[in-house]
């Protein structure tokens, strides 16, 4: 089981868009996939039309004895299951703080699912917190969407520093450019500048209105507009991610 977290400090940069589309691609490839929506806003749950309601709230689910499985919902996509978020997740941080080894908690909760899933995607809220620390500890891979602006790139440095501190030794950090607008000089320059950064994935996700329509279609772009440039971007990203992890690329 491979755990792939999508996280960065900045909000609204395409984390959920990436998590949802990559999870979909993973599942259609035949991998048993779980998408864990850890953001109290529940955007990923919304995209898959899963009603977010976690009985007893996020705190109960963090108990050592609590089994995640009863909370798992099958999506309409074969091989893809979802752990929905609900508003109670906003207190996840406090709940974690009240427990022993809060940073290990997520990994602990995922361990019993190792036989059942090939891939787990964690869609996280944008903040530095105990939750993100716990996420980094559970993850094998950290995908970091970066908008090619100076500010975002500074954010990336903070993420790298935090990941080095909080993540496992073996954590693979893979930034990629998200919401790229080729018409903007600053975007082109930044993409060019970071072309030399070996960690960066080569594939960039373009800014495209077809992605925004996910909110209306309530499905991944790769499902309803597979030949769009954005969808091809997510496919490329997924292929590159796999090649990287296989030791190539």
């Amino acid at each position, binding site marked *: 089981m491979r755990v792939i977290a999508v996280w960065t400090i900045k909000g609204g940069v395409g984390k959920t868009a990436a998590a949802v589309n990559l999870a979909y691609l993973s599942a259609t490839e035949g991998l048993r996939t779980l998408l864990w929506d850890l953001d109290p806003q529940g955007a990923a749950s919304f995209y898959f039309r899963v009603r977010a309601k976690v009985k007893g709230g996020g705190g109960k689910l963090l108990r050592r004895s609590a089994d995640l499985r009863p*909370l798992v919902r099958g999506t309409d996509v*074969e091989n893809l299951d979802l752990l929905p978020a609900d508003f109670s997740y906003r207190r996840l941080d406090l709940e974690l703080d009240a427990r022993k080894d809060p940073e290990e908690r997520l990994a602990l909760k995922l361990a019993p699912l190792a036989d059942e899933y090939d891939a787990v995607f964690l869609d996280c809220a944008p903040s530095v917190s105990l939750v993100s620390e716990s996420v980094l500890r559970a993850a094998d891979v950290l995908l970091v969407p970066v908008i090619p602006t100076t500010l975002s790139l500074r954010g990336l440095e903070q993420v790298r520093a935090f990941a080095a501190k909080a993540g496992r030794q073996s954590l693979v950090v893979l930034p990629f450019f998200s919401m790229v607008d080729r018409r903007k000089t600053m975007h082109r320059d930044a993409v060019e500048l970071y072309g030399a950064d070996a960690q960066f994935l080569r594939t960039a996700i373009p800014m495209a209105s077809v992605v925004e329509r996910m909110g209306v279609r309530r499905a991944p772009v790769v499902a309803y507009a597979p030949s769009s440039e954005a969808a091809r971007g997510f496919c490329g990203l997924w292929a590159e991610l796999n090649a990287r992890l296989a030791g190539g690329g």
Partner: protein
Amino acid sequence: MVPPLRFVVVGRLDAGRIAAWLAPTWHVTAGRAAPLVQRYLDTFDWALWRSGGRLVLELEGDQTRMRWQPGGAKPARTVPLAQEVRFAADLPGGVLRREVAAAAGLRALLPVGEMRVRRKLLRVVDGEGKTLVRLWLEAVHPLLRGGPAGPERTRVRVEPLVGYARAATGVVARLQGRAELTPDERDDLADAAAVGGRAPGDYSSRVSVKLVPDQPAEVAVRRILTHLFATLRANVEGTVLDLDSEFLHDLRVATRRTRTCLGQLRGVLPAAKVASFVEEFRWLAGLTTPCRDLDVFLLELQDRRRALPASAAAALEPLLAHLRKTRAAAHGELAEALQPARFRGLLERWGKLLTRPARGGKEGALPIVRVARARVLRAYRRLVRRGLALGPEPQVQAMHQLRIDGKKLRYLLEFFASLWEAEETTVFVGQLKLVQDALGAYHDAWLQHERLVALGDEILAAGTGASTLLAMGRLIADLERRRAREAESFFCLFADFSARPVRARLMRLVEYAGVA
């Protein structure tokens, strides 16, 4: 009680009708009807079916996918296929492959039957448009050589989604009791297999013969031999076609068991009648040995290669390639030898002898339970005597002889298992098996050691690099260590096996009270 998830449609039923049954609680959206072919796969010995699972190759339009429905309440796993799949190892990596491989082991995934399905998906959705339950309105039709066979059946199948059990239960409740629907108890796998003359579980390599304690020994032994004969014959085709390595293995075991039966139960069948077969079955056993030895060697080396780092694994490749060639030649010879008159004649004459009633040998009229008891105890005593006579530095030949003695005892116990208390038999056989496994591993390590040493010159002559020879050297050293280790563990296990408690267990086992 688990609610039925499939219903046979009696008369006519369409999507609109079903939607009306479910309204207004649920909304139904119907897809288009689509045809597909479902090809059921299993190992020859039905390992997947026995694990409770179903493996189906689905051909729909230009898409091919594998669907694995594991046992229990787990959801189905599906994976698109780009290449042909013969073994579990050919499947794309992931949960599906892991689960199928765990059940199928080394055996090939063979088609056991085919269904043509025309189906329409009815999604039962909530207010958000989320599917809560999938309903399939489908017509299924078993296929024989691509053409329909038997009647077509129409049904409704309920496919629950993980986490939406309540909705599934609710939907089933609305379907139950409708005049148009009756619960469907048929098994698609069984239906698809039946048109080809097969049935789930119709083959197993295990000996299972139901004997009656006081039936005449001659009748009982004939039943055992008939059972073994069926197993032997069932494996000929797969061996010749080389479908997987286990056909040959099972064929050999059936041959060996037959020989044990003839040798250890001498006096039960008319001696004059069976004498010639003893020689013929020995010939058959010898015929199959070279190919099987190479199979074992190759499987072992492939296993080891997986555990090695990439560079070391590459060094073994020329050796493996050489062995594969030798093995292919050995199999070719075997397959040829299984065609002509001598083998076919043996099968024919043996089959006749088994079906034609004949006067038994001098012990043929004794109750089988008494004969069984005497022969099992004799085999046990011989095994213990020879084992205890081994010196501290075991001789390969003596160890090999011991292994054969152990097999004879084990086979006898299997033949007569139905006469004795099942639990006790299982425990004793388990203890014997531990000893046997150590002896087997010891012998294999020796055999492979000898073979590698002998192969050195051939590999060198083939012009491969030094790295392969070095890798072989490492293997040889490993095998020496392994042989020493196995000898040690054998002595430990055998000490237990020959001690009083185990002997007492065997005595208890074979004392059958139900005979006058």
